[in-house]
């Protein structure tokens, strides 16, 4: 700032003066900022979507870039935190959208569509991240190539470590490949995202089973080990007839099909369970031509499956039998001939908070089916783990860093968290990668946030305080509806394993970016600049697009009187007013 000297002007008569109180020389010497007792500060806050994402994506940042049509940068911001956006955009239950403040003004932003669009767009453009030359000597082993293992390997490779993934199956991907049907997650999407991780320099060795042809001795030469073995075991029905021909456990049914095996099922199928595996098994069975009934012991409201999955299953002609529990698989000549069930009613809430189903005595009925697919949940297989890796409640016990009780060994994904979503697994892999890197560099491990709290490889200086809907300045925010889902027609869907949801077109995706409130995040709307009555806000001359970004505007505290208009006119709460005393040292 140039120094402004006060100039003394003496008027000798009224005639010499302007008609109104107008200055006739600069008034900049009068530093009115000294009147201020509170100051506006560009302090970006956490949007609810970012808060909710277990993979720690910077959603608000890439939505902002998409709004400007800057897809490449958006993709880079997205992929920096999550190597599997094409996967997540299709299979994540998107807690980000559940929390989205837009929900109350037209419907949540279709974040998952933006995410998959960016992945697909980048693939069309042939964009791949450049190979990462290892800069670190310490080799890291990852056991399991599901979402947790892939994520951990990706982030470690990004930090310069040579990483090897050991996978027991003949193909990498874990449950993404063996559990999720292709109509939800096309194989080329999974293949290209795994290929991009390999292109970084990550080595994937398939057919290597821990406890089989891979021993703990083999892993001892690695500086750290990340265990992501998932939950491969199906829970048993524990009713008579379970061993009959025609009883196929959900996970193995899906796994065999997904690995290309031909699986024979009957004409009438009962699927038992209300989770995502049950929905997948039911819909796959429909595609194989069977009539399918889902038997679930609670009511629809308690189903753990993603609501869209249930709805799509219903559209595809899957029948639902709620409040019913199987008591016996009826067997004739060694083959399934029916399923005897008991009706249930809902009692008091149990430990999970859901109402406990109770059998109604004498309410037996029989479903005439020739195939029974139990999908009652899955469990971890600890048989290959040494005793010094402690377990609790059916999972490997870990600290917030992902460290197990065995030094140098970390764990994540379903094996350790039991969260059960792809995105949580991805987050747990990232978390372990950050912890492994810091430990190997000898850096302190500061308090680790929970998975849902903005865990970033590339953090921005953002207040952890989440912006609530009520805090937004609604004067500037109009209701705009969320785009409708376009699904392939049902007869066409049932004819093949092609993707059910073709996604949104470019124009709609950009509109979604523009519909984003950008909660807590300056999107350069210029409101503060326009409303400042003291002309004390300006665009920064040194601002660039580079990520992580920093505030676009700055306050001229020489003249800002602290009126707070900028903060109250900011539609998205990217400005806070702070007491001046806190700033005076």
């Amino acid at each position, binding site marked *: 700032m140039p120094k402004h000297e006060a100039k003394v002007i003496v*008027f000798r*008569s*009224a005639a010499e*003066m*302007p*008609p*109104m*109180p*107008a*200055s*006739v020389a600069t*008034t900049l010497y009068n530093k009115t900022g000294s009147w201020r007792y509170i100051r506006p500060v560009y302090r970006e806050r956490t949007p609810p979507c970012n808060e909710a994402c277990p993979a720690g994506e910077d959603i608000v940042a890439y939505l902002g870039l998409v709004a400007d049509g800057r897809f490449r940068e958006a993709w880079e911001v997205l992929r920096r935190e999550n190597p599997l956006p094409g996967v997540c955009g299709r299979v994540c239950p998107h807690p980000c959208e559940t929390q989205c403040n837009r929900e109350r003004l037209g419907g949540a932003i279709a974040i998952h569509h933006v995410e998959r669009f960016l992945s697909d767009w980048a693939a069309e453009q042939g964009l791949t991240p450049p190979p990462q030359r290892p800069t670190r000597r310490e080799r890291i082993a990852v056991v399991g190539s599901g979402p947790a293992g892939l994520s951990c390997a990706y982030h470690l490779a990004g930090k310069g470590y040579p990483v090897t993934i050991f996978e027991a199956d003949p193909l990498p991907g874990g449950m993404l490949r063996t559990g999720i049907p292709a109509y939800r997650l096309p194989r080329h999407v999974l293949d290209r995202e795994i290929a991009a991780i390999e292109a970084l320099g990550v080595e994937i060795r398939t057919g290597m089973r821990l406890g089989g042809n891979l021993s703990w001795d083999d892993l001892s030469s690695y500086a750290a080990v990340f265990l992501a073995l998932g939950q491969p075991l199906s829970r048993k029905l524990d009713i008579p007839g379970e061993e009959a021909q025609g009883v196929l456990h959900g996970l193995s049914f899906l796994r065999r099909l997904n690995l290309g095996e031909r699986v024979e099922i009957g004409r009438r199928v009962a699927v038992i369970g209300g989770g995502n595996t049950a929905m997948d098994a039911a819909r796959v069975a429909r595609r194989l031509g069977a009539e399918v009934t889902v038997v679930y012991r609670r009511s629809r409201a308690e189903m753990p499956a993603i609501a869209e999955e249930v709805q799509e299953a219903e559209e595809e002609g899957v029948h639902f039998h709620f409040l019913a529990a199987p008591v016996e698989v009826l067997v004739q000549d060694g083959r399934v001939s029916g399923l005897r069930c008991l009706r249930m009613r809902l009692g008091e809430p149990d430990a999970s908070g859901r109402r406990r189903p109770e059998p109604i005595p004498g309410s037996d009925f029989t479903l005439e089916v020739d195939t029974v697919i139990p999908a009652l949940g899955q469990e971890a297989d600890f048989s290959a783990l040494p005793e010094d890796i402690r377990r609790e409640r059916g999972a490997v016990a870990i600290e917030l860093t992902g460290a197990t009780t065995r030094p140098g060994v970390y764990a994540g994904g379903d094996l350790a968290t039991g969260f059960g979503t792809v995105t949580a697994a991805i987050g747990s892999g990232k978390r372990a990668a950050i912890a492994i890197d810091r430990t190997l560099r000898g850096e302190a491990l500061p308090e680790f946030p929970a998975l849902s709290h903005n865990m970033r490889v590339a953090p921005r200086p953002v207040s952890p305080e989440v912006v609530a809907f009520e805090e937004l300045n609604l004067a500037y925010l109009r209701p705009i509806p969320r785009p409708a889902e376009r699904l392939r027609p049902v007869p066409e869907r049932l004819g093949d394993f092609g993707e059910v949801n073709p996604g949104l077109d470019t124009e709609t995706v950009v509109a979604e970016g523009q519909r984003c409130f950008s909660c807590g995040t300056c999107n350069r709307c210029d409101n503060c600049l326009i409303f400042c009555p003291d002309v004390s806000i300006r665009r920064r001359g040194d601002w660039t697009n580079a990520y992580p970004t920093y505030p676009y505007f700055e306050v001229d505290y020489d003249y800002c009187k602290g009126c707070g208009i900028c903060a109250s006119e900011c539609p998205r709460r990217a400005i806070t007013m702070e007491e001046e005393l806190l700033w005076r040292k």
Partner: protein
Amino acid sequence: MEKVITGNYAVSYGAKLARAQVIAAYPITPQTSIIEKLASFCADGELDAVFIKVESEHSAMAACIGASAAGARAFTATSGQGLLLMHEMLHWAAGGRHPIVMGAVNRGIAPGWSVWTEQSDTLAQRDTGWIQYYCESNQEVLDTVIQAFKVAETVYLPAMVVLDAFVLSHTSEAVDIPDQELVDRYLPPFRPKWKLDVDDPHAFGALVTPGEWFELRYKIQQAMNEALEVARQADAEYGRIFGRQWGLVESYRMEGAEVALVTSSTITSTARQVVDEVREEGLPVGLVKVRLFRPFPVPDLVQALQGVKKVAVLDRNLTFGQCGVFGEELQAALYNTPLRPPLFDFVLGLGGRDVTPETIRQVIRHTLEHDAPEEPIIWVGVKR
């Protein structure tokens, strides 16, 4: 072109013909149809103006001040409580020398609520530095809005065009709507000498020390003094172009009058009729209508009242603890002149109570029957 329109629409047409560029207003009974009409003029593209919807009258005037400071011709309209809420900004408009024009519909001040006519709301703004016109007819309203811009922009003071609630605001009369071309000739675009300009920056309305403040007040008073002559000429020029002029003060049947009724606004029309009647009856009564209240046209009034024996002022307003405002102002104006007839101040028609020919006759009778007023206020029609 003649149109049958209400007094409120006459205000709207006046502002439209004056080519107001920024209109910021907040609706209030009985002003609402003024700005509704202007809003639809803007929406229909008949008037190329920015219509700013605001959350209060205070903001309306603030927006007009900003627009005027930026060099735009600004207009607003309000009434009663709305005008009172504007009060701080009225001073700002005048002190900043922003020639804003306002349509002000007279309305009684709450509590209790009144939406009916009374001049106390506008007269309570007499010290703000605004020029004030009080109109008798819808035609006069339309013509005065256009004249007000001319006067305001010449002397750099804001101007109020005042009309009675309902009696004018919602009553239709045939009004001649002048040709736009003629109005454009009469009222050229606003080109202020001082305005917000990024190429010539000045800070407006900042702190002024005792060394200069006094002079700025002096200049406002000078401008007010100047406004009297400017208003006279603006009216005369209007007459030459449009064939109509209204005078600052109008004398009606004052030849040989011994008693002068001093009126303003619509009471004047009723009084004219009664004066005609009592003249027929042989009573020496005439009428002086005050159209311009600020600046107060003292020389015109002195001249109009030459030779009268008594003055009867009809005040549809009251300044508590004194008397009616027109009465008070006229007494002050005449005090230092040789012309000091007994002055009867009649307070009547408050809160929109009807002022009928019989009310005026009562005033005349009282004035003729008394040599001098026995009380500072003579209440007409109050149920005591």
